[in-house]
């Protein structure tokens, strides 16, 4: 038979009361913080999982910011190219042909000035900045991409190199292949040499030469759209300058020998250059669409991960309050029992 002593009962009661009190505090804490666990040790597996999810959420958030920045740059570029294309479409299809068939020197001369003006304005557009860098200078965003040479006739320069000179073709090609990679959630990785694997990041570099073309063909005519327009403009402008009788062998009001043939050839080149512009434009359109789709995907992913984090960390408030109420009830019951613990003994009944 076990002998129950006063102190033994008291000791047991005290430790049970403490346990009940601890439980009450723990559930109260859960209600206050609304977290499933308030320290790593309470639930190591869930805590590890939560940290992993948070890392994923931060990475996605970073990629969203980068994606936003790149998308805005592309949208700015898209707008510039779009308006350039629209303005040129009118000129290329209508005005130039009109000018070529126009018998009046004064009319062609006016057209020439329009074309020269247009060349200047295209150069200005493509020298636009987004933020602190030039949009259309690939990875060389600090330098102005397009400029005019100092001589006469003025030639188009890209980063100081004449775009029409065949000797510069290799260097210009290298410039169009420059990359500026941005991490937009495609799993940016490096190869063994430390170079970014192109399929794992987004190349946000845009080169103006991709849109305008460069180099010269076998006839020596420029491929570059602005150069074509500028030459055409010069040729047509020369028509008005002729105040003297025209030179030997020059027909109509053309300024120099061969101008008319050259003008026709340039008109065809203009059509080719427009085609290059349209191709590059639609490729950029596709890439911009991809950026937007990717942005939406990132947003959805961010949202999903956040929900998962809440699922792991957050306590359902109804559950928490329920647990707390029950713990409170148990604690109160334990306190009530305490009164009967210190019960009377035989001594109280002795006379």
């Amino acid at each position: 038979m076990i002998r129950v002593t006063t102190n033994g009962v008291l000791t047991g009661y005290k430790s049970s009361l403490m346990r009940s009190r601890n439980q009450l505090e723990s559930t109260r804490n859960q209600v206050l913080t609304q977290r499933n666990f308030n320290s790593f040790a309470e639930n190591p597996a869930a805590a590890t999982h939560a940290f992993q999810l948070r890392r994923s959420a931060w990475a996605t958030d970073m990629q969203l910011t980068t994606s936003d920045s790149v998308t805005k740059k592309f949208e700015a570029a898209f707008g510039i190219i779009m308006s350039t294309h629209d303005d040129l479409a009118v000129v290329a299809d209508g005005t130039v042909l009109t000018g070529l068939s126009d018998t009046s020197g004064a009319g062609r001369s006016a057209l020439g000035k329009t074309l020269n003006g247009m060349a200047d304005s295209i150069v200005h557009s493509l020298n636009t900045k987004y933020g602190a860098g030039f949009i259309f200078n690939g990875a060389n965003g600090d330098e102005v991409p397009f400029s005019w040479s100092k001589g006469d006739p003025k030639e188009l320069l890209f980063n100081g190199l004449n775009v029409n000179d065949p000797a510069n073709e290799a260097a210009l090609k290298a410039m169009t292949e420059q990359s500026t990679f941005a991490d937009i959630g495609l799993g940016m990785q490096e190869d063994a040499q430390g170079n970014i694997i192109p399929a794992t990041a987004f190349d946000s570099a845009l080169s103006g030469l991709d849109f305008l073309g460069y180099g010269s063909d076998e006839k020596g005519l420029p491929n570059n759209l602005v150069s074509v327009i500028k030459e055409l403009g010069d040729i047509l402008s020369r028509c008005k300058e002729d105040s003297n009788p025209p030179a030997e062998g020059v027909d109509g009001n053309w300024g120099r020998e061969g101008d008319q043939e050259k003008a026709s050839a340039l008109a065809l080149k203009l059509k080719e250059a427009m085609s290059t512009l349209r191709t590059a434009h639609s490729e950029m359109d596709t890439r911009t669409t991809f950026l937007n789709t990717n942005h939406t995907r990132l947003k959805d992913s961010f949202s999903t991960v956040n929900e998962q984090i809440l699922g792991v960390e957050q306590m359902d408030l109804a559950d928490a309050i329920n647990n707390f109420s029950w713990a409170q009830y148990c604690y109160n019951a334990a306190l009530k029992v305490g009164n009967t613990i210190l019960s009377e003994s035989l001594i109280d009944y002795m006379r």
Partner: protein
Amino acid sequence: MSSVSTFGAFTTARLGMYAAMKGLDVTGHNISNINTRGYSRQKLDQRAMYLTGSDRYSSPNDARVGSGVLCTGISQLRDPYLDIRYRNDMAGVGELDGRLGVLDELTSILDEVGKGKGDGVIEKQITDFIEKLSSLSTNTNMEEYQTLVRTSASTLISFFKSNAKALEKIKTNTENGFKQEMTKANEILKQIAAYNDSIRKSEIHGDSALEQRDQRNVLIDQLSQYMKIDVTYGKEDIGAGVTVEKLIIKMGDGDTDDITLVEGAYAGQLEIRNVPELNPNYDATQSDPDSPSFGEWLTADGGGTIDPSFARSIPSPIYDLNRSPLVDRHGNTHPNHSTDRELEYEEGSLQGTRDMLIGAGEFTPTKNSYQSYDTSVSKRGIPYYQKSMDALANKFAEVLNKANPTWLTDADGYVTDADGKKLMFGADSTAAPPTVGVPLELDDLMQLDPDDPANAGVLNHFKAYGAKVGGTLISNSDAGDDFTGITAANISISKGWTNNTTKLATYTKAEDVGSTSNSNINHIIIQLRGKHDYAPSDLDSDLGSSNVYTSANFQEMYTNFCGILAMDVSTTGTLLQNRATSTEELDISRGAVSGVDLNDEAANMMMYQKSYAAAARLMTTIDEALDKLINGTGVVGR
């Protein structure tokens, strides 16, 4: 027929009253000591008194009666077996408690759950650093983004440093706590010996000294928390056939080789052992006796020696303990225990605290160290977490510095000038820049020791003509650019980066010169997010093997060892809870045997009071009977 003593019955009544009064005394003593810690209830021992012997001339019609009750003494009710079980359990509880105390302190520093709005502190700061790099990657030509990155790195580094400092503080506090525990244990040993002395004297004079035994038991219970003890009661012969009890306390669980801590009135003291100092430069292959790396031990003048007795003595860095010779309170040494003895740790809070002080897990040194006991990787204490923080800081600095090379290189890895032409270094390198000589790969250049005068020529040459793109970002002091031996305590932004003479290189290849390429920033980001191998020998070649124990990115590595801490806390807490519950039950069982119960004492009180009344009534009866005999007999006819 035997004779009847006329006045003998008075003695019987008197003895009865005396025993009842004594019984009431004992009951009162029990009741008033109900709350005294360690008190064992006492009871009165009685036996019936029978004085007459056998009589040669006795008759079969004789009726012999005893002469009353004798109080033979007071005894204690205590179960010694429960005491043994309780003390064994307390040693386990003490060890777990010691460990949990330190683990809780570590948790307050390393646990990031719920801090920083749930995102953590170091975890979040690493992400913030990568975020700033990401912003820089889309704005490579803007100086303010470089500054933002540096500020973020500086904050991260300050977190490393503050963690390292806090961990060091915990170590110091724990060391002090350990020494205080030792002091307390020593005091208890002395007090037990003093009680032994006093109880022995009382026993010699015939007093069983029950209260002193109780106090001694309380002290032994306290001692059992500090270490595992084995308590035995021997006998001491004091001459003339008289023996008294002798208490012997040994450290251990009853093996024959356990060391005696207390024997009778003699007690030893715990002290940290003095050991010969190890030679940190020791090289096993060195055979020249004059070289400082010869010999495993260090002498007082800093040289090496192969004989440990010539080495300088230092307190054991792994807190090995000795027991000093057993002395009594007059300073006399016990003849059988007059030398220092080496103690082995066995459970108890001293072991628990010591494990936390020296446990280094995977970072346990494999050479040039004092760790001589089984250092299985499960023992992880403060050094483990300190070294883990160091490993993280070291790897972070290594990766960041490597990803930010100082010099421009071409596609093959050769250092070039600002125009991208390979820099040549030759015997005659005075021409500026020279075109004769041998090109140098960047990796080879970075391996050269800048303090070696033989390398001065080539290093100055490259400094003069090479194109600087990056440089050392993290160093071991903010006064310089030295990137060796970086730990969590000394990690700093390098002097160059603070002064802006070193920047984050946005590109490192000659083909990207002049552009706003962000190729190197992306490279740094990939490196920071990527997995790296951690081996203990990264920090110090003496530290364990070069086996990779973790391959993780920075945040995973941090969460990893915080997770290990959390698991430890959780497991230790559960074990402690279980052990403490069972110890408490044992204590209650002890109390069931030796505790005072008011009902019992009340019943005893009534019993003794009634027996007193009965004895008094007997006396009155005898008085009346004798009165009749003396005053009422033979008065007829007067």
